[in-house]
């Protein structure tokens, strides 16, 4: 049982280090050109379609996918390097991140060939943005309580209902959503939901922005009214979305974005304390770096398992549990440690501005993409407790 919980030490191959240099050089150029400010953490304000295309042109989107769909057939470990470098630089990845991480792999697995040939190359070129339609006003963590209906009609389905907390729906070209095609059965309450590809920006879909406590408007309510989805946009088995949802969780939950979301405040703290920190600052920084290093090694290890074709759902849940709790606490720990930073520290203002944003962002980190409670339930199941 616990034998399943192994995080073997993966060493990134040499080609990853070459790639890392290329990504850093590219990002340095973009920063120099004024595309984004690496000290400004609220990159989610920034929709950067041109940047997205330039990342695509580098071959860094869909990089693990087959070449015939525009991919590069490179490894998960290489994708990992690109992802972490983008995240640490605070690059504006909003437009392509979901498509690259999640939506593309779902389409690869479940979409018909004509759709794959149409959409995947455009993701790889950085041209299109995806949203994920899971939560509804009365079903969040309880995914299988979703009620938005897909009713069979001539040549496809009619969608009626509301998705909510849908990140990027206001800019998305497509959404991958789950809709109810049948009622749940007595034996299986997860039965009856089907995964669909939805083309956004059409009549029958209304996107209403929702303000967040950070001051941003990056998630939305999405209302479907008799919206038509053609037959070939069904992804996978009708009524069987529950069988498909779990295997993707390992991709969604183990990446570097699950512990690097507030990383910038740690960098800035190190800058603020200078080369000769007092004992308190040194110990605080040392512990945070040790914790960060450990999570990254766990996360890289999961990338290695994915690379080897495994489905490390429990391991990925552990990474997200520990990682998101850590990145949530990080701004508060940094605030503690920065309490005695000299008034004259040159980056004091930057740090304060970053802390202000990070502290407001922190509460969502253990909610989005699977709450801590849901993750611990998955881990408990993996331990044989339920």
């Amino acid at each position: 049982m616990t034998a399943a919980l192994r995080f073997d030490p993966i060493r990134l191959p040499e080609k990853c280090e070459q790639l890392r240099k290329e990504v850093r050089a590219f990002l340095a150029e973009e920063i120099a050109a004024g595309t984004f400010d690496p000290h400004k953490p609220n990159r989610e304000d920034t929709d950067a379609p041109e940047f997205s295309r330039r990342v695509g042109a580098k071959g860094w989107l869909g990089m693990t996918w087959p070449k015939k769909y525009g991919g590069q057939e490179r490894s998960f470990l290489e994708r990992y390097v690109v992802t972490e470098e983008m995240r640490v630089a605070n690059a504006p990845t909003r437009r392509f991140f979901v498509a690259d991480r999640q939506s593309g792999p779902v389409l690869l697995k479940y979409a018909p060939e004509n759709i794959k040939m149409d959409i995947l190359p455009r993701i790889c070129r950085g041209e299109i943005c995806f949203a994920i339609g899971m939560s509804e006003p009365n079903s969040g963590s309880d995914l299988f309580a979703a009620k938005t209906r897909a009713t069979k009609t001539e040549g496809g389905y009619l969608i009626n209902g509301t998705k909510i907390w849908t990140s990027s729906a206001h800019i998305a070209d497509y959404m991958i959503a789950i809709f109810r095609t049948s009622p749940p059965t007595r034996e299986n309450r997860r039965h009856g939901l089907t995964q669909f590809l939805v083309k956004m920006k059409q009549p029958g879909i209304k996107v209403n922005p929702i303000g967040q406590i950070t001051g941003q408007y990056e998630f939305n309510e999405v209302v479907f009214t008799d919206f038509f989805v053609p037959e070939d946009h069904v992804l996978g088995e009708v009524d069987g979305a529950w069988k498909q949802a779990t295997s993707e969780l390992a991709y969604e939950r183990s990446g570097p974005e699950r512990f690097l979301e507030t990383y910038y405040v740690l960098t800035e703290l190190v800058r603020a304390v200078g080369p000769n920190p007092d004992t308190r600052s040194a110990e605080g920084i040392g512990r945070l770096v040790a914790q960060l290093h450990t999570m990254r090694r766990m996360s890289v290890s999961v990338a290695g398992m994915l690379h080897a074709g495994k489905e490390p759902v429990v391991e990925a849940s552990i990474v997200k549990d520990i990682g998101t709790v850590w990145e949530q606490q990080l701004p508060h720990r940094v605030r503690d440690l920065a309490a005695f930073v000299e008034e004259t520290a040159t980056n004091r203002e930057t740090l304060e501005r970053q802390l202000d944003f990070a502290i407001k962002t922190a509460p969502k980190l253990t909610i989005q993409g699977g709450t801590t409670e849901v993750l611990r339930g998955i881990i408990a199941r993996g331990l044989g407790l339920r």
Partner: protein
Amino acid sequence: MAESDNIVVETAEKIFADLADPQTINNDKKDSWQAPLWQALSEAGLPLSWVPDDLGGPGASLADGFALLNAAGRFAVAVPLAETMLAGWLLAQAKIASPEGEMTVLPASPRDRITLDADGALSGRCRGVPFAKAAQHFAVLAHGKDGVSIALVDASKSRIESGLNVGYDHSDTVTLAEVQPVTLKAAPKGVDQTNLMLMGGVARSLQIAGALESMLDISVRYSNERVAFEKKISKFQAVQHNLARLAGESAAALAAATSAADAIANATSFNDEVYLEAASAKIRCAEAAEKGGGIAHQVHGAIGFTIEHILHRYSLRALAWRDDFGSESHWAVELGKLVARRGADELWPLVASR
């Protein structure tokens, strides 16, 4: 238990299962298990794993030796296996052959120091030396005016004030007063007290990680047996979430420790990257010993607090191991200083170095 994937670990696990079963040991009030266990380990050449052929050992790889220490942690083995391995490793760095029998290393803390005088005699006081009382020889790292030396010292030439750590294992104060070593050689370049502490710290990290794996195992098992409020306590969500957190702490400890072991086993020197790995392992494993061990006790309730139950063999030892070769506070301060010295923009390149 993790599957054994090499012959050294396989051999050790068989010996541990036969002669170091925690329940049997816990029932044995006279410590009569110690001698047969040590004898079996010695006959298999395990305490001198890291000593090459020409210096009297089997010459196992660093990687195999680290895996062996992880297995020893899973059984909470309470004989000076890790200490003798480290001593053998240190002596081998200066091409000094290892004698038979139990050994330990001096110093065992970054705060203590042994000095070498012009007559070749060693002096100094070392606190918290694990298993000094049981050792026949010490492997000593000493500072003289020409730099660092490594020495083999007859333990009977020292003064030992005996003590116990929180895990009830010997942790003694050793005083050398102008002691002439059996053998003394200059340390090769790259071997110094910091690196010895890092090696010792990684050994302890692997032991802690092993102990946590076992704590998770026995806690899960217990929660599936114990009934309260008319159901197994494993069915309570609060208990499930506690055990999920214990699994996380156990996983983090194992990941940090095995990563550091892999880094050392494949490094040509103790550079900043290896320092990050080794220091982080000790810091994170020590934190996990506290958090994870606390949960294991909470799940067990009062029974886990009894001396009859085996839980304390793991939980207290894991806590005690935090103190050896530099506590997590020590390494956190040192790692923090290293990070500050390198500067803010060099932090990420360090973290992403492998």
